[in-house]
């Protein structure tokens, strides 16, 4: 247990030492959303129609980009061997890395999401649900992403391969999250969708550490 906590502390400290990395992910989030505003044109109605989808897809891509080197960096500098050889179960250490990753990238995304939502003219009725959906959905993104990142360790084309592996796993999260936000904009209850999101998170939490650990053990062969 204390090994896992030490790993969380180390990763958070690494992120704090180079805040540029977290800031870069945030900037990507804001800039990519801006790009869409440009791509779609200035009419507020047209934007508002698709705002939920865009906020969520962009958040998802930002998560994806941040996952790129989650385990590859550990493999490159030899730390992965030390993690695999640590007495603590690898599943626990993977969870610790995911937690640190979520704290240092996904959580900041959630915090700035209202800003992006405003830029994209999202209906104010959707804000609370947007935040809730991000809080419930991003853990799944991080956990599924960790599986992909573990599978891609040592592969020749990191970034795009990771995207290819992970994006199909992200689709259900995206669908339920957007449905939740759209429901509350339409004046309906977002609860069933949010419950599904939470269910997905629990599912990811139980499955992902095992899949990722299995992948990492192979990677260190």
């Amino acid at each position: 247990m204390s090994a896992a906590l030490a790993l969380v502390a180390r990763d958070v400290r690494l992120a704090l030492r180079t805040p540029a990395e977290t800031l870069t992910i945030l900037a990507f989030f804001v800039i990519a959303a801006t790009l869409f505003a440009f791509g779609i044109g200035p009419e507020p109605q047209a934007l508002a129609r698709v705002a939920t989808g865009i906020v969520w897809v962009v958040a998802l891509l930002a998560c994806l980009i941040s996952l790129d080197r989650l385990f590859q960096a550990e493999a490159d500098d030899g730390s992965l061997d030390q993690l695999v050889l640590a007495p603590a179960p690898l599943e626990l250490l993977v969870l610790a890395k995911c937690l640190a990753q979520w704290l240092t990238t996904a959580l900041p995304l959630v915090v700035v999401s209202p800003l992006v939502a405003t830029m994209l003219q999202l209906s104010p009725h959707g804000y609370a649900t947007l935040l809730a959906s991000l809080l419930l959905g991003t853990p799944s993104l991080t956990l599924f992403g960790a599986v992909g990142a573990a599978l891609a360790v040592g592969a020749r084309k990191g970034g795009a391969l990771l995207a290819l592996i992970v994006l199909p796993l992200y689709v259900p999260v995206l669908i339920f999250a957007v449905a939740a936000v759209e429901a509350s904009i339409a004046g309906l209850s977002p609860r069933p969708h949010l419950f599904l999101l939470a269910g997905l998170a629990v599912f990811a939490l139980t499955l992902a550490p095992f899949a990722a650990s299995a992948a990492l053990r192979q990677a260190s062969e």
Partner: protein
Amino acid sequence: MESTPTAGLEGRALACRRGGRTVFRALDLAAAPGDLLVLRGANGTGKSSLLRLLAGLLAPSDGRLAWDGEAVDEDPAAHRRRVAYVGHNDALKPTLTLAEHMRFHAALRAVPGDACAAALDAFGLGALAGVPARFLSQGQRRRAALARLVAAPAALWLLDEPTNGLDAASVEALARAVARHRASGGIVVAATHLEFAGASARTLTLGAA
């Protein structure tokens, strides 16, 4: 063969396949407490592969690896607790200081962090304890990786070309650490192309067949 369980590390008829090719097979080895086993052999004969196999990072494609007579794969967690492995890479994060690295390593291996400062001193890194790893030269990085061995004691040291890039003083520091480890009943297995100081070292030459 004898039927009394051998103390320490014992491999019987080990085989290793990598990239679809058999790197070695029918390899026997044994190392009792206090032993230093030096792996030798030309490039590509499987020294690094054998070390990863002994660490449990790589599964042998055949044969049996035992510790104190008990098969290692029956309790992998116990084996992880007794192994300390130093590979080609030094496992250093550019922005963390040496002291932080040492403390993290101790926590990871679930030992108290008391020995960290002394370990850095043993490799002449005491003055650099507060320096982030990115400012270190190649040889200094290597020494930091070796200092971990001293900071978090483990019964079995597996060292892959530990002297790579070390200057003469550091090679001596390593020899001292190895001697102290052996004197306290530890086992060391090291792969190297160079001469590796060590009283009564045993040599295993790979690819000699």
